[in-house]
C-alpha cells in the first residue's frame, strides 16, 4: 500500500501469501520438528531462543535447520516491534499479529510511522477547525473527500488519530447535548472541537509549578538546604536568575 503525503511517498510493506498448491519441499527430521513448532505458534511466531529451549536441539542444528527452512520459503523472519534485535520466525502462510508488528501504524522495520501519523494529525486538525464541531465520521468523510491519501483510512483509524489530538491537547472532546453549537450533532454523541485558534501558541499554557525551576527539576526529592542539591546552590536557579 502506498500513501501519498505532500511530495513524499511512504511505503508500507507488501505482504505476500505463499502458493499453497505447490507441494511442500523435502524436510529433514530436525527441520520437521522446527517447522511444526513454528507452525503451531500461528500468527504469534516464536523467538529463536525459545525454539532452542523447546526443542532441546543443539544450537548449530537449529541454526542450520532454520536457514534451510527459510531458503525453502516455509518460514520467514519478522521483526518483533517490542524486541527488534531478536530473530522471530513465522510459518510463511501466516501474517504476523499486531502484537508482533505493532499494528497498522508500524513499518516492517518495527518503527512507528511517525511522519505519516503527524501528517494525518495535521489533516484531521485542519478539518476539525473548518467544521468547528466535528465527529469522527465527519472528519473521516472530510479526509476522504480531500483525496490527500491514496489509500482509504477507516473511520476507526481516523478515530485513533483524532483521539491522539485530544491527548496532545490540540482538540477538546465533548458529548453533544443537542443545543447551541451542538445542534447538528445527535445528543450523546462524542464530538471534537479545536482547543485554540491557529494564531495561538502551539504549546499549552505553562502551569505555575512548571514555570519555576523546582517544578521541572528531576532531583527535587533530593533537594534540601545544606545538601548537595539545595536552593542556594542550584544551577537551574542560577540560570533562571541570570539577568
Amino acid at each position: 500500500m502506498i500513501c501519498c503525503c505532500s511530495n513524499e511517498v511512504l511505503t508500507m510493506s507488501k505482504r505476500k501469501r505463499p502458493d499453497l498448491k505447490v507441494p511442500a519441499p523435502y524436510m529433514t527430521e530436525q527441520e520437521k520438528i522446527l517447522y511444526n513448532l513454528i507452525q503451531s505458534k500461528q500468527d504469534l511466531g516464536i523467538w529463536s531462543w525459545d525454539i532452542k529451549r523447546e526443542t532441546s536441539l543443539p544450537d548449530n542444528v537449529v541454526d542450520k535447520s532454520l536457514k534451510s527452512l527459510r531458503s525453502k520459503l516455509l518460514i520467514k523472519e519478522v521483526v518483533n516491534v517490542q524486541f527488534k534485535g531478536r530473530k522471530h520466525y513465522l510459518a510463511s502462510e501466516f501474517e504476523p499479529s499486531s502484537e508482533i508488528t505493532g499494528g497498522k501504524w508500524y513499518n516492517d522495520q518495527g518503527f512507528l510511522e511517525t511522519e505519516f501519523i503527524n501528517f494525518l494529525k495535521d489533516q484531521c486538525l485542519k478539518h476539525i477547525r473548518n467544521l468547528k464541531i466535528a465527529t469522527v465520521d465527519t472528519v473521516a468523510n472530510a479526509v476522504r473527500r480531500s483525496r490527500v491519501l491514496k489509500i482509504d483510512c477507516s473511520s476507526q483509524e481516523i478515530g485513533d488519530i483524532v483521539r491522539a489530538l485530544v491527548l496532545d491537547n490540540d482538540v477538546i472532546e465533548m458529548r453533544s447535548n443537542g443545543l447551541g453549537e451542538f445542534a447538528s450533532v445527535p445528543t450523546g454523541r462524542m464530538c471534537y472541537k479545536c482547543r485554540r485558534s491557529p494564531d495561538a501558541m502551539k504549546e499549552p499554557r505553562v502551569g505555575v509549578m512548571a514555570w519555576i525551576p523546582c517544578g521541572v527539576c528531576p532531583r527535587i526529592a533530593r533537594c534540601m538546604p545544606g545538601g548537595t542539591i539545595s536552593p542556594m546552590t542550584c544551577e537551574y536557579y542560577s540560570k533562571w536568575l541570570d539577568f
Partner: protein
Amino acid sequence: MSFRPSCDPLASSSSSNTWSPLVQRLEQEQEQRQRQQQPRGGGTMVPPSQYGIKYAVHIISSHFGDLVAKVCECLLRRGPLTHRNIVRFMEISASQVKNCLLVLIQQNCVQAFSVEHPGGDEDESRRSTEYMAVFDNIIHRMRFPKFVAVVSQELDKECVELFQGLLQHGRLTLEKMIDRAKSGQEDCPAQDATRETLSKLINARFVERCPDPEPHLSPPSEEEGRARKRTKFSKVAAEPQTIEERVLAAAAPMEAKRFLTIFHTTTEEDGQKTECSFPGVGEKRKCDALESDKELGSDGSQVLWRVNVQEFMHRFRHKACVENVRERLDGGAAVALNAMLETSRSMEKKVKTDNAGPLTINTIYEEVMKGEAGRAMTLDHLRASLVMLGCERGTDESYQIDLKNIIELAQNEEVESVVLKRYGREAYRIFRLLSKANRLIETDKISSTAFVDKTETSKILFRLWKDEFLHMEKVVVTGPRQTQFLLWKVNKSTLWPHVLDEMYHAALNLNLRVAYELEKENELLNLPIEKRSGPLEKRYNRLRTVRLLLESSLMKLDDAIMLFHDF
C-alpha cells in the same frame, strides 16, 4: 494457557474483552487496600505532608522567631499536646513554652481545647487542656497581601487600615482597635469611625468573631452516639471526623453570632420614633452607644475579632474557576460563570461547594448586565456560553454548574504541565491518556493509543512510576511459559498529595533563595542611595529584579497550592 490482550478498552468496538474481568479484579483489590490504609477516623482533613510542615515552620520562624517555630513544629509533627508534654518534648522551660503558645494562639495558629481523660478503676476522670496547631492558618499567612488587595478593591482606606491591623495582631477587641486608631485617646469621632469601619468589614464578611478559646471536646464514644442518633433516619451515614475537625467545629461560634454587628437605631430628622425607641434623645444616644459597644465588645466583654479567611477562600476559588474557563473556553463563558458565582456566593455554606445554582437564565442575565464585560452580551449569547460551560439545564430554563469539575480540570492542567516540562511531549500524551482513562491500562495499549514507540513507552512509564506519578500493577500469567504484563494508572488520591508536597517544597525553596540573595547583598542594601553608582547600581537593580521575580513566583505558586489544598 496463553493470555493475549485482545480487547481495546478505549475503543468503541465490540471486540471480546478478555482483559476486563482481570483488570476489574485488580482495581477492586486496589480499592480495598486503599480503604484499609486510610487513617482511622476517616474525615476530610488531610494531615500536612513533610514539606508542608517544613514550609509552615519556615513561615512561623520568619515571622516570630526560631523558638516559636520549634514549638509549632512540635505540635505539627506530634499532633495535639498538653503544655506539660510540649515542655517534655522540647526540653525548654515551661514559661518559654507558654509564651510561644500565647503568640501562636493570638495569631490563630494554635487552638486550645479541653478534653476529658477517663480515669482508671478507682480514679476519677480528669480534664486537661491540649494545644493543636492549625496548619491552614499558618499557610494563610503567606496570603495576607492577597487579602489586603481584595479589601482595598471593595472598601475604603480606613477599612484597609483596620484590616491590616487585624492581620498584624491576629485578633483584637474593639477597644484595642480604637486604641490603635487614635493612640488610646478618648475621642468620640475615632470611636464611632472605628465602630463603623469594623461594621463594614463584618458586613462584607471579611472579619468574624474569634472561636471559643478553649472548647470542650467530649470523648469520642459520646459524640459518636450523638452522631448516630442524628443520622438514625438519614440515608447517608455521618462520616467520622479527625480530631482537628472536631476541635475546630467545637470552637467555631454559632453562625448567627459569627457576624453579629451593631444594631443601628437612628431616628428620623423630625424626631419620629423608630422601631427601637428610647425615652429621651440624650439617653437614647447613650443607650445606642452602650448597645452597639456591647455587641462589638468595647464594654469590657472582650469579644475578639479576626480575619474571616473562609470568605477570601471562597472568592479565590471563584476567581480560579473563572480564569480557568476564560483560558480554556472564551471570555463569554467566563462572564457567564462569573455572574453565576456572584449570584450564588451568599448561598454557599462551605468553600468546597460542588455546584453553583440552580439559577434561572433571567437571574444570571441580570448579574451579567451589571458588569462592563457583560453589557454587550445578548440573552442568546449567554445561553450559548452556558451550554459551552456544560451547565446542567432544568425544565424552567435554570442552570447549574459543576464547580468541582472545573477545579479538577484546573488541577489536571497543572500536573500535566509539569509532566510536559519535566519528561517531554510523549510522556505528556501518555500521562493524559492514563489520567483521562482513570483505570489500569497495559503497556502495549498505551503505546498504540498514544502513538509512542513501544520501547520508548516502557522507558517513559518506568520514569513516571519511579517519580511517583504513576501507579503500576504486575500481572503474571502462568502457563507453558510465564508471561508478565504491566498495568499502569494515574492514581489521583496519592498523586495529588505528592504534587502538593512538591509545591510546598518549591515554595520553601523560593523563600530560602530570596533570603539567600538578600543576605548575599546585605552590604549593598545597607549602602546609602548616593553611594550606589556604576557597577553597584547595576548590582542593586539586578537584586531588585531577582527579588521581584522570586516573590511574584511565590505568589503565583501559592495560587496553585490553594488549587490543590483549599479548593
